[in-house]
Each structure stands twice: as structure tokens, then as C-alpha cells.
């Protein structure tokens, strides 16, 4: 009888050793809450709501006349990068399958602000309240949503630049 018990104990021991070597691997299915699925960051100017990767054509109509437009062959391949300056902000587009899509919005002065109330000159705390924490005394904060990366740059605690950048898979 004693021999049998010792055999069982030995068995369990071996089983335990191998299992603890069972490092947590990554190849089994990971729960798929894909990134932060907060609503997409958008920029509003007058009646137009500018979302990243949206079609540029209707937006250009809604935004009305622009102060200056510039067009250059896209450094990242075919099609043209276009930049429309509306004074308070610049709208940037890129070409995909023949259509112009929004690739970014850059706030240029403090006459415009984001729907969440952040503009050039806002304080770091205001940004924390509007979008959430970021690294202490970092010089920039980025917030990601499905199609858009919101980049806010600081100089000694004051916002100096606000940029919406389209997340285009490389």
C-alpha cells in the first residue's frame, strides 16, 4: 500500500513541475477588446464635422472658401498631398484610389478650439480634464481613437499645438 501512495505523490510532483514551466504563452486567443474604442476624435468648424479618413470633397464645400491651398506629390507615394489653410486651422488630405481623404487637421492659432474645448494656450490641467491623464511634465500627449490620433504639444505647461492625425496602417 505504502508503495502505491509514494507512486501517486511522485506522479503529482512531476505533473506540477511541468505545469509551472507552462509559461503564459501568447498564442491562445486573447480577449479582443481592440484598443480604446472611445468615439472617434473629430474637429468641428461651423457646420462641418471633420473626421479622419473621411471624404474631403463634401467638407471642402461645407467649409467654404479657403485662404490658401498647396498641393505636392505625396512623399509617401502616388496621389497628391493637399493642404487647405483656413486661417485658424489647416486641413490636410491624401489620395486613395482616386479619392481625396482627410489625413489631418492642425490648429494654427487660438481662434479655434476642439469640440472638447482645448485650444492653443489652454493649460495642461485643462487637457487632463478634457482627455485624461498623460505622463507628468511630458512635452506632448497623444490620445488614440479608432481612426484618429490626437496630438497635443506643450511648452512649459501651455498648449502650443493641437493636431488630429489620421491613423493609416503602414
Amino acid at each position, binding site marked *: 500500500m505504502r508503495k*502505491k501512495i509514494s*507512486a*501517486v505523490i511522485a*506522479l503529482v510532483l*512531476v*505533473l506540477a513541475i*511541468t*505545469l509551472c*514551466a*507552462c*509559461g*503564459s*504563452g*501568447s*498564442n*491562445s486567443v*486573447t*480577449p479582443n477588446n481592440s484598443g480604446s474604442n472611445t468615439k472617434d476624435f473629430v474637429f468641428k468648424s461651423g457646420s462641418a464635422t471633420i473626421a479622419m479618413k473621411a471624404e474631403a470633397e463634401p467638407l471642402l464645400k461645407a467649409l467654404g472658401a479657403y485662404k490658401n491651398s498647396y498641393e505636392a506629390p*505625396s512623399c*509617401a*507615394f*502616388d*496621389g497628391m498631398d493637399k493642404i487647405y489653410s483656413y486661417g485658424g486651422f489647416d486641413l490636410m488630405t*491624401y*489620395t*486613395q*484610389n482616386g479619392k481625396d481623404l482627410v489625413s489631418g487637421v492642425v490648429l494654427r492659432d487660438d481662434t479655434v478650439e476642439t469640440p472638447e474645448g482645448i485650444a492653443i494656450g489652454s493649460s495642461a490641467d485643462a487637457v487632463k480634464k478634457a482627455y485624461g491623464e498623460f505622463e507628468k511634465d511630458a512635452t506632448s500627449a497623444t490620445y488614440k481613437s479608432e481612426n484618429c490620433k490626437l496630438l497635443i504639444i506643450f511648452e512649459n505647461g501651455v498648449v502650443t499645438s493641437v493636431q488630429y492625425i489620421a491613423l*493609416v496602417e*503602414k
Partner: protein
Amino acid sequence: MSFVSLGFLLFLLILFVLYYALPRRFQWVLLLAGSLVFYAFASPKYLIYIAVTALSTWFAGKLIHDAYAARDAYIKDTPDITKEDKKACKEQAKKKGRRILVCCLILNLGILAVCKYTDFAIGTINSLFGTDIAFLRFALPMGISFYTFQSMGYIIDVSRGKYQAELNPAKFALFVTFFPQLVQGPISRFDQLSQTLYSEHEFEAQKITQGAWRAMWGFFKKMVVADRLVPVVTGIACNPDKYAGGYVLALVFFYTIQLYADFTGGIDITIGVAKMFGVDLAENFDRPFFSKNITEFWRRWHITMGTWFKDYIFYPVSVSKWMLKVSKWSRAKLGPQLGKRVPVYLSTILVWLATGIWHGASWNFVVWGLLNCLVIIISQELEPLYAKFHEKCAFSNTKGWDVFQMFRTFWLMAFLRVLDVYRNVPLTFRMVPTIFSSKGWSEMFSGGMLKFGLEERDYIIVAVAIVIFLIVGILQGKKPVAEQLAEKPLVPRYLIVWVLIIVILVFGAYGIGFDATQFIYNQF
């Protein structure tokens, strides 16, 4: 290191050259070394698992061997042994063997169960009791399901006295870790495999070239067809809300083709590679889609798994004392006709439950297993009806009827397999009926199918490949194609091989396979 990688080809080349350069007696040692290197590349951390399984099974085999040897010696040494004494000694040795077997089974099946099914169990408990136990996410060592079952088959055979245990641990380790069969099987039997695994092999050009052709045919199926269909299958399966109706039918069809090409292709590579080293592995497929009913299908698809489950689960269960009691009880209660069926159907259900679970740790595999079982039992019940139908209607034994049966079996299996892809039972049952709705059909035929990164040319290639599968299948009926190819004169023979290599390299869906004219100016 997956089969479809240059790394594997290089590994193969080096091993092949050494294999035939070194003196013959080192050949099996070299295979063992190669297998360990292959495993170390694939999943270095988990070498311990396969080592534990190999050693524990070898050790158990040795213990049983010693116990039986002691029994035989005892019987031989005492000439005037009485009948009872002989029976007692045999019984005692049998009990000892059984105890060692059970320990070995618990250890190895325990490892498999814990690694593969812990999260599945946790998930089920969470959903049943609303608890929120975190997943442990144990990593699954490569080929654990295959080599564990293969080793358990060995130890059960040894405990049944079917053949002698292998006393040399290194030789046994080779049986467990032989690299071609690690990834997808086949699940070999020790007595068959050991004949060619350990013997010395001359450089037989004929056998090696046939092995090479078989492997190339496997690469063709895998790289040109299976890998090409992956984007369509995942595209449709992962967006059930976007792609319903006609798309589901396309998914059912393409997944079955992809699974066939991928699985049989992988096995062709395995058997081909093993043959190049002179080792003969068991066939795992016998033209499965030429079978006329489900039971026949499961005798020709994944044969080694089917026979494994039959020999080590189905028969022992249906013949066990407990099951015999059940059959007595059922015969008494439900009368002979019905009573006769209960034990057989009970063991069938049990086997299919085990098969389903073995395939993967999620409910859709369990349901897939049970559905297969249901279809088998129904077709078993309808047997008499079929017999009558055959006599009455002359059409039923013509070629046309056979083709219809093959067609019916193909689609039946295809629809069952779709559970694998949606990986979610309620979703599958919600999606399949949408085929009969009008959704998706029109959109599909006006460019809808081109949304998955596949162009028209890809579908043409798949269509042509299916025709080639059919032709080769028909040819295979008479004699293995490799032998037929060998009989042809030199020029056509090498022409076919030459075309096959070019087709794989050019039409294979590998590398950064996107449209080259676009690649310079495509949009990032």
C-alpha cells in the same frame, strides 16, 4: 519553423546530406537530433513537455516489460506449476501492468488536459456561474495532441502485450519526436513505424524522388490553394454582420477547400519528407471526397485519428464490463431490437464527444463532434430504408447516383465544418440559414468577392487547382500517382515536376504578395 519556410527547406537539405553521408548505423540518431533541433526551433520553451511525455512513457513501458518478463520467467522456472497458480500469477502481472498504465495515462493526458483545456474550462465556468476567473492562458506546446496520443497508443499496446516495449530510451524518443509527424500527425503505431524508423536505409533514388514529388504536391496544395484562400475565409468569418447570405455559402465552400488543401497538403509534405529518409508513415487520407456516405468519409479522412479513437476508446468502452451491464439492462427494459442499439450508440456518442474536444478547446468543436455523431446514427438507422430504395429504383446503382452521393457527402461535411470557422455555436446557427435569404447574393457576384484582397485571377487559380485535385483523385484511384509518374519516360516525368516547381514559385500565395505595379505607388 513551419513547413512552408526557407528555414525548413535548408534544415531538410542539411539533414538529408548528413543522413546519406554518415555511416548507416548513425541514421536514426541523426533523425533524433534533427527532430530535437526542429522542436527547439519551433517552441524551445516546451522541449520539457515532449521530454516528460517521452521519458515517462518509455519508463512505464520498461516497467511493464519487466513485470511481464518476471511473470514469464516465473512460469517457466516452476515446471510443476498448477493451473490456478499460473492464472493467479498472470492476473497479478496484468494488474501491475494496468496500474503502471493508468499512472502513465494520468500524467500525460493530465498535461494535455491542463495545457489545452484550462482556459476552456474557466471560460465555461465563468459563463455558467457568472464568475470572473482570469484566464491562465497556458501556451500549447507544438504537436502536443498528436505526440501525446501517439505515446498513449504505444503504452496501451504494450500493456495489452501486443508487442514488446522499446527498451532503448533514445530510440523511443525518436518515435515520439520524429519531426515530420509532429505538426499535423499522422498518429503512428509503434509496431508499424519502428520497422522503417530504426532500420538502415540505402540511398534509393527511386524512393527518394517519389518522396520529393509527394512533398512538392503537398507544397502546391498548401501554398497555391490553402494560403490563397485564407483572406476570403477570415474576411467573411470575422465580419458576420457585414457578410451574410450568399457570402456564408462561399465561406462554407472555400473553407472546406482550404481545409482539404491545407490538411492533406501538410500530410503529403510529412509523408513525402519521411519517405525521403526511407521512413514509411501511415496514410492519413484516402480521397475523402469520393466517399458516398458519412461513415465511409470518416474511414477515409484523418484515418490514423479515426483508428486511434476506435482502437483505444470505442472498442474498450463498448466492451467494458460497465457497458455490458448497461446493454443487459437496456435489452431487458427496451426489448432486443432497441436494446441492442443502446451500447453501440452510447459508445459512438462518447467517441465523437472525445473527437470533438480533441480537435479544439471550444464548444463549437464539441457541437461539431456531436453533429457528426448524429448524422452517423441517423444514416445507420435509415440503412434498411436505403436497402429497400436500392432494390426498387434501378437508377440507384448507376454512376450518376454515386456522384450524387459524393456531392451530398461533400456538402454535408462542408456545412458541419463551418462551425470551426465561426468558432461560436449560436452565431453559426444564426448565419447558416441566411444563405436562403436574398442577402449578399447580388452584391457577391458584382465584385463583392473582390473585397478580400483576392482578385479574379486568384479565384481562377483556385478553380483550376480544384480541377487538378479531381483529376489526381481519379488517377489515384487506380494506383498511387507517384508510382504512375515514375513509370513515365524521363522527359514527361521531369516536365511535370518542372512545371510543378514553377507553379508553386510563381502562383504560390507567399511573401509580400501584393500588386507590384501598385507596390511602388500604392497608398500608405
